[in-house]
């Protein structure tokens, strides 16, 4: 149901472009322009959904995921962090359409486990705890990154892997953070001649 709503009635900017597109089509505007707007919507789905109902997570879970992704890849003086790339939206979208139960369960239970640990370690919900406390919790569950055993350790790896995937394939990740120089037309190859 939530998924249907989001596809047919996206709020905010999405709704505007949807309306505009319909208006344009009614007015007989060029198909090319309509296609361009459709492209915008696709981008909107991939890059921005904060503020509207998430597709897979509850609003509370989404807020938690959003913060966790930013803790994994934070903004620094070099570039913005995962939050600015809407990493949580991408994770939410991919989980919402997944036909597999495993990742969904892993995330639901993982987020619950984060809250349990937050209560256990700091006596309050994760998002109410201080930045130091949040980092302390993540530090604890990342101890066995190479050989995770406990459920929260497995969840950390899943969280980190999906966050990295979303972040480094985003516009900010590719261009601002990594300063990627390729995917362009070159007259000459770059590098060292084989001598």
């Amino acid at each position, binding site marked *: 149901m939530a998924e249907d709503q989001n596809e047919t009635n996206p709020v905010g900017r999405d709704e505007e472009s949807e309306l505009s597109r319909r208006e344009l089509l009614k007015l007989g505007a060029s198909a090319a322009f309509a296609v361009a707007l459709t492209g915008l919507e696709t*981008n909107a789905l*991939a890059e921005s959904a904060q503020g509207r109902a998430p597709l897979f997570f509850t609003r509370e879970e989404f807020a938690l995921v959003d913060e966790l992704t930013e803790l994994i890849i934070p903004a620094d003086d070099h570039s913005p962090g995962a939050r600015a790339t809407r990493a949580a939206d991408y994770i939410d979208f991919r989980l919402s359409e997944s036909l597999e139960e495993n990742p969904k369960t892993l995330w639901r239970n993982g987020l619950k486990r984060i809250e349990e640990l937050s209560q256990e370690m700091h006596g309050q919900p994760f998002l109410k705890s201080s930045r130091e406390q949040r980092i302390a919790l993540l530090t604890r569950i990342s101890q066995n990154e190479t050989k995770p055993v406990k459920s929260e350790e497995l969840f950390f790896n899943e969280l980190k892997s999906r966050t990295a995937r979303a972040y480094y*394939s985003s516009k900010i990740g590719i261009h601002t*953070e*990594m300063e990627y120089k390729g*995917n*362009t037309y070159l007259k000459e190859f*770059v590098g*060292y001649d084989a001598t």
Partner: protein
Amino acid sequence: MTLIRLTRQSAAEVDLKKTYDAIVVGSGAAGGMAAHVLTAHGMKVLMLEAGKKLDIDKELKSTEWPYEHKRRGEMPPGFHALSLNEYNIRQPPYAANSKAQHVYSYVQGWGGPDYSKNIVVDEKDHPYTGTNYAWVRARLLGGKTNIWGRLALRLSDLDFKAKSHDDYGEDWPISYKDIAPYYDKVDLYLGISGVKENVAHLPDSIFQRPIKLTYAENKLRQSIKKMNRLLTPYRAGVTTDGLKHNKYRSKCFGRGACNRRTGGCDIHAAFDSPTGLIMPAMDTGNLTLRTNAIAREVTIDKKTGKASGVAFIDAETGRTYEAKAKVVVIAASTLESARLMLLSKSDAHPNGIGNSSSHVGHNFCEHIMGPHITGLVKDLVGKPRTLDDGKPGSFYLARFRNLNERNPKFIRGYGFEGGSGTSIYPGNAGSTPGFGSSYKKSVRDYAGAFMSMGAFGEVLARYENYVDIDPSVKDKWGVPVLRFHYKFGDNEKKMADDMADTAQEMFTEAGFEIVDLSRRILTEGWSIHELGTARMGTDPKTSVLNQFEQSHDVKNLFVVDGSAFASASCQNPTWTIMALAWRSCDYLADQFKKGSL
């Protein structure tokens, strides 16, 4: 409705009443080359391709950024790529009982699989049985050339005369001097990039503008010179200067898309059979193309025992047709060609056509893969970003084993392919420990500082490694499928161990810090270089084809793809497949004109 209409139209393209000069089965590197050469000789050719004609330029979208794609290049739910683990813990057919709607071979697990999911086959429709094998197939016009890795190497007499060198297997019925002029023709007609090195066992081509090396690759090149080993820029089957005689292809502009995706070049700088060979052949007016035509059987003239044409199934309607020709050229890919020959049984050829030797499907060989290494190039850590992936390949490290010396543990050899430097996605994001600012900075600082390479080694041709027809399992079109009886042997396993040792030795010599060294052998088939199932030879009792890839048994039958190889060599096969096919089709056309087929 549209589909049916189109199918009828394309069915009508074939004149079933006409006897063509030749039918070519398959449209990949081998089939494309056969069509090019035979039509250039003025022969009227019908090409049958089992797959569809895909508008490839609309599929590949080479310069689309990951964030412009809804799933960052990944496939939608329900589309599944087989993992290494699945290949090993399960038995073929791998897609049986899968919950996914569509199942693809492992190559669909690479970057940007959504762009190539219409190129490789859906394993659900195309089962096979028997031993574990990662069989990668592309059923469409151009076959696997639409996504090939483009490494275009020549073989040498160390390969063609391997038996004379180490007394194992069979020599090829040709020498380097027989094929060299045809390698030249392929170089000039299709374009190849590389650097002349004057190394006897890796003969030079007629090269266009070479690819450059990264700092790390150059460092390794210089270091291993002392060991008398060669690292050379990727010899890419890519036109880097352009081809004046081909209006369908552009020169390479170093967009690097070929490495960000499963493969494929939508400006066709990289060779693919449709733009490189088939479309120019169509322009001669001598080529008729029928796609969605699954060759079911080579038909026989009962009076003469010769091939009379090909029966094929329309992939859309399931209807069977029969096209007639004076010569049949099979180029369906090594394993599919063997399958077609084995399926073509008749009173005259009870074992399958051209199979009086019982060698069709046997001597199946390829390249073993697995051992690989990753090193950290410390001088590059934290250095300003460079553009390292704007090229169609990185490097090739030539064979150095069993050249003049004799290794005590194994015969034959292996080479390495690899890469280094920055790419669009930082591979170290997954392997860098921790989280937070220090993780982020570490990924950034180290991303361009890694170098990796993995080996491709010769698998010995052995009679006991073979495919045959499964007696009960059929594909979606009711055609009996292949059953694999194929395993790596002791020589391959010992060679694989040596690959890891020498990789370590060379990275150490170059001063790289080794961060990963794997000895694990990948599932049989991983190299996508299957060869040898209808080998050439001088003795009709132990080989299927003569030196012109002509059947010993049926003189108007030719098999011009990788199945003709008498041994696998360790060099990538595509350029040799095409040079051989050109030579064989020159011979075919000559014999045809003389009326001796």
